[in-house]
């Protein structure tokens, strides 16, 4: 899969939708719910299920980044599946917290 910046993808097994913010430095497979993601324009097949070990969920509005490969995606629609790269789970990046300004 060619994960170009701005390209849009959807989970093959849940409602999650993603847009690529930064590409990976090496070819990778992005998965959601344990299955490779599919282009946004394609419909997902009936009956596919989230793998039990990739079911932590994806949250709309969160960025998911992989320091190892540089891939960063923005989740635009929440889903039951969590993200992984070549089987390796990746987590949401926490926005940097800043102190009170009052």
């Amino acid at each position: 899969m060619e994960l170009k910046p701005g390209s849009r993808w959807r989970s093959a097994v849940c409602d999650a939708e993603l847009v690529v913010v930064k590409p990976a430095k090496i070819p990778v497979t992005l998965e959601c719910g344990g299955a490779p993601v599919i282009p946004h324009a394609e419909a997902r097949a009936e009956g596919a299920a989230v793998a039990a070990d990739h079911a932590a969920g994806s949250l709309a509005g969160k960025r998911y980044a992989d320091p190892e490969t540089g891939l960063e995606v923005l989740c635009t629609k929440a889903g039951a599946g969590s993200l992984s790269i070549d089987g390796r789970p990746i987590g949401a990046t926490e926005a940097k917290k800043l102190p009170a300004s009052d």
Partner: protein
Amino acid sequence: MTAARPANGTAAAAAGVLADLVDLGGAGLVVTELAPGWTAPAVGPGAVRVGVHRSRARPAGDLERFDILLSADAQAPRPWVGVGAEGVDAALARLAAAVDAQPAAAAVAAQVLRMSLTLPFDQALVLESLAYSMLLASEGFAGWRAANPARLRADDGRPRVQVAETESRLVIRLDRAEARNAFDARMRDALVEAFEFALAHPDAPPVELSGLGPVFSAGGDLDEFGRADDAGLAHLIRTLRAPARLARALGPRLAVRVHGAGIGAGIEVPAAAARVTLAPGTVLRLPEVAMGLIPGAGGTATIPRRIGRRRAAWMAISGAEVDAATAVSWGLADALGPGP
């Protein structure tokens, strides 16, 4: 900012300086009765200038020099604040008390509002933050904080903002009902993150902002006021993490539903949106000057762009509550509507 309270001798000296400034026209409230043949007094930039219309035709002439214009005609159009014939003296007394209690904050509110509309929106936000940071280091604020000590509240760590997508829109909800959606640093950062998500969304969906619980927002979290111990860094944080700037950047996509109360930031941020609806019975208010500050969540940029600088100055300096019907007639909100 925790400043040491001055010794009594220092406070007495400061009171003497303030009295001198008022004598010199450099501070205080200056009221001009706009009867036929009125002339404007020559005063310095630190005086809050109020023009009063009590009877007959509304005065013409150069009203630009006034920060607030009060009219006995309750239906007087912008820029007037119509308080009714029997309301004029009460309004003046309220302003006099506010300026007397916080002379520096009241003057700075008037000054920032004089400048705001002459600047591009983003620059007006920076101007507000500069002024706010200065006031955080002022004795007026230190006095308020000393009289109203902050409480230490436990933080359950729950997200401050919910983001959900429906078929047609992105819904953002303030989620701190137990504190009447008081705006703290975590809520500021979460709302900024949600707005940045909306701005980055490839479908550019419409966005709706509302609050969970009894009110939209009671405003800045008072327990955090005085927490910033570097006014310079606080200024840089405030201008970077500015929900009002992002709300404005969303343009026609953003609608805000305010219910119950919109206090301080609870109306300053909504006023940046293209569309604001108020649930019936909602009250709006800017409380900051009474605390020795000015609106600091963008209100001096967003509110005068909706209602003009004179009505904005009335809200900011008097601290008076504005009811939903008045807010809609002024344009502070666009319509009455259902709550969330």
